[in-house]
């Protein structure tokens, strides 16, 4: 499976995703060629799934972000699938998680301002199917957001 070199490379990559390959190679103590080969192999094996770009929605005028926690009607066997499919069709939804716990599904929803939020909430969120309870947590600030793993 993974050896120490792979782990060292992944640790450095996760700690600083914006570092260029030369810097990463240096920090992981490998040559640029080794780094490239190892990353390629990690990609092929599906360990490294993607390098995505984070979009700062605030810079695009979306000042409001709300975490909505849903409880679904579990007597309805298709509740999860129907809810998830409908939530995917809402453009303002940026994240969907399903849970084992007192909450069934969580959505991150963004809006330009409170007036827009109200409109999204009424027109797009409230019609979502099989919902028995909704609880909002409004984002004030993000203090830490990292993909780092304690490898």
């Amino acid at each position, binding site marked *: 499976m993974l050896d120490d070199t792979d782990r060292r490379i992944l640790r450095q990559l996760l700690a600083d995703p914006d570092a260029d390959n030369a810097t990463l190679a240096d920090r992981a103590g490998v040559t640029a060629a080794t780094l490239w080969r190892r990353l390629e192999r990690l990609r092929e094996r599906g360990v490294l799934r993607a390098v995505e*770009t984070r979009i700062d929605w605030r810079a695009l005028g979306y000042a409001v972000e709300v975490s909505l926690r849903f409880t679904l009607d579990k007597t309805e066997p298709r509740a999860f699938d129907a809810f998830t499919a409908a939530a995917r069709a809402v453009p303002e939804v940026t994240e969907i998680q399903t849970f084992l716990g007192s909450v069934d599904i969580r959505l991150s929803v963004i809006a330009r301002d409170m007036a827009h939020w109200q409109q999204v909430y009424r027109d797009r969120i409230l019609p979502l199917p099989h919902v028995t309870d909704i609880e909002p*947590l409004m984002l004030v600030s993000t203090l830490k957001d990292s*993909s780092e793993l*304690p490898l």
Partner: protein
Amino acid sequence: MIDLDDTDRAMLRLLAADATQGAAEIGRGVGLTQPAAWRRIRRLTDAGVLAGRRIVVDRAALGFTVTVFLGVRLAAKGRLDLDAFERAASAIPEVQTIQHVLGRFDYRLRIVARDIPDFERILRRRIMTLPAVGQVEANVVLSEEHRPGPLG
């Protein structure tokens, strides 16, 4: 705040899915020359829209099979309590995300663990001992997806 046209939105969709593409590839994807694509990427970067890279790994393949979202309510809510909680929580390596929120909880935390016993250890030894920590609710993540958002 900057205005986007359809080409900008198409480029953002491509970049959001794969940050490793250069201006030439992105340009090909949206029908622009490399210099024209580069100028637009530069403009989006300068406006702060492109906020860095996110590495997506198969956490289970790396030995982290459990992701948990915690809702945390503080027992005391002075400014110093918030500062102390945030500082201590940020230092925990298993805590990936900390968000200050308004609602039934004061903070949302995202935690990675090797397995359920490892999560229990983190919860007991690291989370429940945080300064000012009160009620804690844990929900284990079963599935997760990032959506492109309003770029359509």
